[in-house]
């Protein structure tokens, strides 16, 4: 069986403009594989092809790419799940391309840093061993802490494409709510102050592209809704 792939190629040192390159891959009849396996096989044929990958099991978030128009992790997306006679692989949209499928994620991480992604606790006497939470308090973090920062969501969000310097983006806001919802965190007001402007949170118009592409099945739109509610309650 022949597998047809079209892969985005761009080497700024050599190429004037990006181009799509067609590849054919021979696979056993009926055999399924992940898109990352196909890319690795292509790289054996053409060592100039560049992409990121590490854990190859959907945990590290390195190989976020756009496959047939939808963002996802190449390592956990089976070829059989992609419709059409050709598999089109492009880098994550909206982010500057370093080379081929490798993007510059500086803007993404800059927004992530803004939300102070660490526990802040100003209690004078921290517990000597550990911060205990009730099962109910811990449950509030489910669906939030699992984010692996692959950037599939933020790079599928038009608001992030147009304002990557001002809008935090779905991944950053999911993490922001993860700390706002944490019973051990005491910096709620400080965190909300940092988000209380016209761009950081409110540029989310709830189109839910982020929910549609999240490879971990998370719901950033819901978390953003909670942050909006917290900001509203503070204002009224």
């Amino acid at each position, binding site marked *: 069986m022949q597998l047809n792939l079209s892969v985005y190629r761009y080497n700024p040192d050599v190429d004037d403009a990006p181009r799509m390159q067609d590849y054919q891959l021979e696979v056993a009849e009926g055999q399924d594989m992940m898109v990352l396996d196909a890319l690795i096989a292509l790289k054996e044929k053409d060592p100039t092809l560049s992409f990121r990958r590490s854990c190859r099991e959907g945990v590290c978030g390195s190989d976020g790419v756009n496959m047939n128009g939808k963002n996802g992790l190449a390592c956990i997306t089976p070829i059989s799940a992609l419709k059409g006679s050709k598999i089109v692989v492009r880098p994550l949209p909206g982010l500057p391309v370093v080379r081929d499928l490798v993007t510059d994620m500086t803007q993404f991480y800059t927004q992530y840093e803004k939300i102070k992604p660490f526990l802040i606790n100003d209690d004078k006497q921290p517990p000597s061993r550990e911060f205990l939470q009730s099962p109910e308090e811990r449950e509030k973090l489910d669906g939030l802490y699992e984010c692996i920062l692959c950037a599939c969501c933020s790079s599928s969000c*038009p*608001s992030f494409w*147009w*304002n990557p310097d001002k809008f935090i983006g779905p991944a950053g806001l999911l993490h922001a709510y993860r700390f706002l919802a944490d019973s051990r965190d005491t910096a709620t007001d400080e965190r909300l102050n940092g988000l*209380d*402007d*016209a*761009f*950081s*949170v*409110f*540029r989310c118009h709830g189109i839910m592209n982020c929910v549609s592409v999240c490879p971990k099945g998370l719901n950033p739109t819901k978390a953003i809704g909670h942050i*909006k509610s917290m*900001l*509203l309650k*503070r*204002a009224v």
Partner: protein
Amino acid sequence: MVTGQASLKRNGVQDYVTTRATALIMTAFSLFMGWYFIATPDITYAIWNNLFSGLAMKVFTFVTLVSIMFHIRIGMWQVLTDYVKAPGLRAFIQFVINLTAFVYVVVGLFVLWGV
């Protein structure tokens, strides 16, 4: 609210609440007008004139026009900051759009006044 709307610096929470509140008013007006057109088989000038002669309808229409103005002001600022990156051009387009929306309110006020 007035100070906030008049200032150039936008406030996320206030914009969020204002767009939703004005959307509710515009929806109510649209539903009312839709129902009126369906429920009234023959709309003559006299019937149309009579509809807008009541104070409640004048207020409802005027509030809707003002809502449209606020909704346009916030919504178009959001759209323009997305798609028009040159500050001068964006300011000019915003000026034209906001002025047009304001003209609609003023003209609407005079039309309602005359009924």
